[in-house]
């Protein structure tokens, strides 16, 4: 089971959603699919056609940059971060 930490700007889109989740999944993509089951619509906010992570979404697995195919070890900590972008 991985620990997933979601950014404040994302959970603001889903009122009542916690920042910290404990989720089963062998890859980042599978973890996001599992998250979407408890927070419907969340995958569409993070993943675009491809499928791939949206261009300004960064995911880190145990501190290392990741994409949807990245393996998620047991007990991993996954950070989802919006890029420093905008104006």
């Amino acid at each position, binding site marked *: 089971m991985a620990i997933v930490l979601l950014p404040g*700007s*994302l959970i*603001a*889109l889903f*009122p009542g959603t916690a920042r910290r989740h404990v989720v089963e999944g062998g890859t980042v993509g599978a973890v996001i699919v599992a998250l979407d089951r408890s927070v419907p*619509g969340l995958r*569409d*906010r*993070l993943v*675009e*056609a*491809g*499928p791939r992570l*949206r261009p*300004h*979404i960064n995911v880190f697995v145990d501190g290392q940059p990741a994409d949807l195919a990245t393996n998620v070890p047991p007990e991993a900590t996954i950070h989802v971060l*919006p*890029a420093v*972008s*905008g104006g």
Partner: protein
Amino acid sequence: MNERVRLLVGTKKGAFILESDAARRDWSMRGPLCEGTAIHDMIVDPVSGAILAGGGSAWYGPSVWRSDDGGTTWSHSSAGMTYGDDQPAVVTVWSLATTPDGAILAGVEPAGLFRSEDGGATWAHVEGLTNHPTRPTWGPGAGGLIAHTIIPHPTDPARTWVGISAVGVFETRDGGASWEPRNVGVRAEFNPEDRFPVTGQCVHKFALAAGEPETLYQRNHCGVYRSDDGSETWQEITGNLPTDFGFSLVAHPRDPATCWVIPLSAPEEGRFMPDAHAAVWRTRDRGAAWTRSDDGLPTHDAYLSVLREAMARDTLDPVGIAFGTGTGQLWNSADEGDSWRMITDTLPEIWAVEAVVIGG
């Protein structure tokens, strides 16, 4: 009579809702709504009363927002809003419309149309438009390759018009299965080898004339036009307007001969109100002549621009007109454009304005 007017304002940093009594002089404001998502269009579903807002986030992608309680709480979705995993991703939503048969249509970037039969919860691609034979030739305008103005025919559910920049107007007469370009008579001056191509026109906005579903007005990159035959052909009515250019146009809700435009300086000359003199121009005779309306607007040093969805009219008598600028000023007229007042000058960049009468 207890009619009130709501202005739904989409900005680069979220939606705002302003409300006034019928005098339209004193306004309350709520916002930012939609969690700061850039909102390109806002409408009200005339059946349910739901407020719909379309836009997108640089982080979290395209979304259509829905509020069934006047803007207090919102849901959002883009479920199904994809061309497929081997195709370009949908970046943002640019336009919304409701159809006579209860569906919602969304125009997106890159240009395409999606339809929702469940109030915006899920979306299905209207493939006939994207698969049009001219699709490989479509090129973007300065704002991207986007599907914007969507006008369902008021009485024939099989007919819908869509504007695509910089491609032109398209119409379906079979419920979206097939589409025809409707650009005959519309100039494309930026294409000197063929000034009147089948597609490639830079339509900016168009609207139906009140009570005449075969009469349309079009604000184009290259002039203003009217069609009297359901968009089959267009006649230029730029006439005495000060420039060819501008983005916004609204039509009177009851008088088919009246509409308003906001001319802007040429694209290479700043795209602001000509001579920095703010004005809205109105025709009462289907474009035969235009009259400048600037009472209450700044007549010098006004480097203002108004985008395609950022002007709206309400349905009161006299009609109210409101427009928002790229620098966050919101203006309104409660007398069909005879005089103007500034509501606020401190909003973020304004992309969309919609005016709705409630109560009564």
